[in-house]
């Protein structure tokens, strides 16, 4: 439980930090797409008999780069690019699992998430990602600037294309780290719902980030405790709480 709580708080911090970028850039579907892409990586790991997350990291990061490239290079909208990679990776995942002859119950852990499945290696992965994120803190201002207005930022020499790739890869890594805890079906909620709830009462973008981290943190602690006490699926408990916070925010907070 303690391990799950630590992993959950790390997740709330990471998803709360990146979520506002995802939401304000209109990339809410990206979280879902990357989670399903991670399934391809997890399945490949299971097939090869290696730790699935170590395969899912490069696999999902690769898909994130692919989505960003397709968005920048072709005349299709971002959600279409996500949709293509989403389906492609899921198809690969299903194919990989079918190639593995014996029944793979472990795959379900990744689909739905489990507190018990969080290993010390997962905590290490979260810590490394937190450290990586801390290293990118000086880039927050230019990322936020480009999120506000990409053209203004580009005119001021912000390397917007490079930053698109960097953000996409970091979001992909967050998604992979979160999968064990929340499950890939619900992981996108971590990126989207706390940020969307915080938007209801934030007057500034930095305030929205702080709000998203707080909403994420509260929902993780309360959700995991409920999950532990009543034997509920952890991911579902956390996400339902997030949805509740969003609903209350949307109903009772004056949108600013």
């Amino acid at each position, binding site marked *: 439980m303690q391990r799950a709580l630590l992993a959950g708080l790390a997740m709330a911090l990471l998803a709360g930090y990146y979520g506002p970028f995802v939401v304000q850039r209109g990339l809410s579907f990206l979280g879902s797409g990357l989670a399903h892409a991670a399934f391809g990586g997890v399945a490949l790991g299971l097939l090869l008999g290696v730790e699935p997350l170590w395969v899912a990291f490069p696999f999902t990061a690769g898909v994130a780069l692919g989505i960003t490239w397709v968005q920048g290079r072709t005349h299709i909208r971002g959600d279409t690019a996500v949709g293509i990679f989403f389906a492609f990776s899921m198809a690969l995942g299903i194919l990989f699992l079918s190639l593995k002859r014996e029944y793979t119950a472990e795959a379900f852990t990744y689909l739905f998430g489990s507190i018990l499945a969080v290993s010390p290696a997962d905590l290490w992965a979260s810590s490394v990602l937190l450290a990586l994120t801390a290293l990118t803190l000086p880039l927050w*201002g230019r*990322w936020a600037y480009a999120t*506000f207005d990409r053209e203004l930022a580009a005119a*001021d*020499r*912000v390397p917007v294309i490079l930053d698109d790739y960097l953000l996409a890869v970091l979001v992909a890594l967050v998604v992979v780290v979160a999968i064990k805890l929340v499950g890939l079906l619900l992981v996108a909620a971590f990126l989207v719902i706390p940020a969307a709830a915080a938007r209801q009462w*934030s007057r*500034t973008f930095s305030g929205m980030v702080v709000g998203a981290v707080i909403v994420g943190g509260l929902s993780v602690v309360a959700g995991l405790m409920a999950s532990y006490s009543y034997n509920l699926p952890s991911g579902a408990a956390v996400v339902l709480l997030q949805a509740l916070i969003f609903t209350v925010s949307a109903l009772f907070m004056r949108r600013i």
Partner: protein
Amino acid sequence: MNAAESTARIAVEVKELTVRFGDHLALENVSLSVPHGAFVAIVGPNGAGKSTLLKVLLGLVTPTAGEVRVFGSPPNRVDPQKVGYVPQFKTLDRTFPALAEELVVSGLRRSWPVRIAKEEYEAARRVLERVGAGHLLGRTVSRFSGGELQRVYLARAFVRRPDLVMLDEPATGIDMLGEADMYRLLEDYQKETGATLLMITHDWEAAYHHATHVVVLNRRLVGFGPPERALSERCLREAFGHVGHAHGISLSFGGGDRA
């Protein structure tokens, strides 16, 4: 005047500029040079390449052929602090949570502020008050009217004291009083700093009355020079296929009643 002095007096130099996007020819063989301190209005029909020209000068679009110099350097080498850009305010993402002063400070820092330092806030306050938008301090931009946004964007451009201000249809969507105010603010800024202004507009009359130079564009350069010459009936007809309401204006051009 020697060559160096001559170059120093030119703010923007465009030589045989051609821009192609795939099969689409956006600009063809455009050449012009804008002296320091000019107020240039860029007019032309939709799809004439006006915004493309501005984007080339901002370093956002790479020319297919030709050469462009801003203060003697390629656009992407110019110190961004020397250039202020006022985009069309209708492109603003109103879902983004931002205060007026944050938008202005982003112009100062060229980055989005996490926290605003006291001196940055003071700089934002001074420039917002100057453009008649002091009352917008502490308010979120998502609820601003077109005129209010336009003032905040002007403040954002002015705050870095640029030598060149580029504006993309700044009067679209604001009322006549707001438009008159905007031209007064631009002219005041220019008087004070000697800056060069480049403005895309659909308003020939405003171009005639406020600009020192007019560029008439329709992918190719149709006319460039003082408004009386560039906005001639021949140029307008060539660019737009008609002279529309401006026919009446153009008849009065000879009257020498420029503001």
